[in-house]
């Protein structure tokens, strides 16, 4: 039986997507260009950013749009990422639609302000070109930067292709600004692997994007002098806890907003988005869970894995925050063994961040699935076809009780 071309049970994508919008143009874009292109179409009120490899191309390209008068954006060139995020927060408090982009150490320098943006409920959209955090200094891809920010209160979306980055940036505007959500959104794309990869992107007409996102709908504005308000007052033991509880609630509302926006975007673009994408999971005995570009690589390898007579599937997680716990349980609890691929290490923890989420979800649901962890690709180390084949082969052994689950390292020299 041939498995090629079969794609069953693929999350929200099982819904038949309508035809793409009229006027859609296919362009050859790199990931960084796709982000800049989406930003141009969104035409935000303020962009404050500082360049850092591999995000540089995003702001470079966007600054050209500003210089050429293609956007009406106030582009603030700041002296650091800490200032970039501070300026973004100020602009969002004023009621502006705000966007920015960063990578690795730039994100680390924003740390303090990330939490403040989320706690002020500022719906800022930030593209993050994933790069390894120093040290030692490294400019290539891994997820240590954004994974470290997973508890900062931002919504986190991971993209696997150039087109997905474009789509996610546009959707992020709507998700963050949704009523009852009002949270900042990070859109992740793998540094160099996606940011500098040239792919075909079906770019929507500018008008379609504008009508999809609509005008900014600020709840409050600092510039509204008829209704004076205070941002950032002292919030002690008597109120802080309540405000944090509100943030938990906002993430719960985000779950619905993400689904609704993904569906609506499907109506506009012909490309439906859900929390995850499932490939060959319906009859899968073993499965791999992955984020970002690696998920695309695995997707391409699934037919080969099936040819090896391995009943293997893939769960590509799109949202890391809020995490699709229910979907993970629903799609994976029938499998015998699951491998979770992490592109970042959580030193001293019982595995990588994605593994901890998946294993917790399945464990709490009482699933008998064996869950194992692979750390891979740190600092841009390649993940090869052989690595992925080995993971599936390990999984089949694990399913038969011939290999114990644990944390293993793909591609590290012993």
């Amino acid at each position, binding site marked *: 039986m041939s498995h090629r071309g079969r794609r069953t049970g693929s999350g929200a994508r099982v819904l038949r997507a309508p035809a793409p919008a009229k006027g859609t143009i296919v362009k050859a874009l790199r990931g960084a260009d796709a982000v800049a292109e989406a930003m141009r179409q969104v035409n935000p009120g303020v962009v404050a950013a500082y360049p850092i490899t591999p995000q540089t191309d995003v702001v470079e390209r966007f600054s050209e749009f500003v210089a050429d008068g293609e956007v009406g954006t106030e582009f603030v060139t700041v002296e650091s990422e800490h200032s970039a995020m501070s300026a973004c927060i100020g602009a969002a408090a004023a009621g502006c639609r705000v966007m920015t982009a960063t990578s690795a150490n730039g994100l680390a320098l924003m740390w303090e302000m990330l939490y403040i943006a989320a706690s002020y409920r500022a719906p800022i959209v930030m593209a993050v070109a994933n790069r390894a955090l120093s040290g030692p200094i490294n400019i290539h891809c891994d997820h240590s930067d954004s994974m470290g920010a997973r508890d900062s209160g931002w919504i986190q979306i991971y993209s696997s292709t150039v087109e997905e980055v474009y789509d996610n940036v546009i959707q992020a505007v709507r998700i963050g600004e949704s009523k009852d959500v009002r949270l900042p959104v990070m859109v992740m794309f793998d540094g160099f692997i996606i940011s500098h990869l040239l792919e075909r992107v079906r770019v929507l007409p500018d008008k379609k994007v504008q009508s999809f996102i609509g005008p900014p709908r600020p709840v409050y504005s600092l510039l509204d002098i008829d209704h004076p308000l205070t941002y950032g007052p002292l*919030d002690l033991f008597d109120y802080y806890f309540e405000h944090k509880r509100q943030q938990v*609630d906002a993430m719960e509302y985000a779950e619905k907003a993400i689904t609704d926006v993904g569906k609506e975007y499907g109506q506009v673009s012909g490309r439906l988005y859900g929390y995850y994408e499932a490939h060959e999971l319906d009859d899968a005995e073993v499965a791999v869970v992955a984020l970002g570009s690696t998920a695309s690589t695995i997707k391409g390898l699934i037919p080969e894995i099936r040819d090896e007579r391995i009943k293997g599937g893939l769960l590509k997680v799109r949202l890391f925050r809020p995490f699709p716990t229910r979907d993970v349980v629903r799609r994976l609890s029938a499998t015998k063994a699951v491998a979770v691929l992490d592109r970042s290490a959580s030193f001293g923890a019982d595995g990588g961040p994605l593994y901890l989420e998946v294993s917790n979800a399945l464990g709490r649901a009482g699933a008998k699935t064996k869950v194992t962890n692979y750390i891979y690709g740190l600092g841009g180390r390649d993940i090869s076809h052989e690595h992925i084949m080995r993971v599936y082969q390990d999984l089949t052994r694990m399913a038969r009780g011939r290999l114990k689950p644990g944390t293993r390292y793909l591609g590290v020299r012993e």
Partner: protein
Amino acid sequence: MARKKETAARKTRAQTRKGRKTERVKRAGGAKKVRTSAAGVKTSTRTRKKGEATSAIGAKRPAGRKRAKGRQAGGEKPGWRDIPRGGLIVKAGNAETYETGSWRTKAPAIDFDRCTNCLFCWIWCPDGAIQVKDGKVVGIDLFHCKGCGICAHECPKEAIAMVDERRTTHVA
């Protein structure tokens, strides 16, 4: 979906609370609650209506009931659903209703025999807690006084002493 679930969960919570609430109300029984400072000084009064929750944390407010106006003491603060998001203060001038007096460990006591009404304390007080009437110091607003002691430090006549609250005698 999420919202429906939330409402359902809230209803269940409200029901389980109901039993406890009735008991508490019975005890409180619409009695007039008089809040006094440690010094025995009457600072605020508030009547608890029948059926009204004693604690606002997560409690469902009866429809049409207005948010407690004026001063809010500890334990009567609104729950997380009832406050503006993001820690914002959307109403100007609400410092007046926010009790900072609970931070105090020592309170200023004025010796009116020594006081010359120079009003240095009034000028220096960072909280506007010195009560003045017709150009004369009449007392301390203990709802706002944090007990910082600046007034006592600045008083040229040493008419203000920072003392254990149980020994203060001034009128609020």
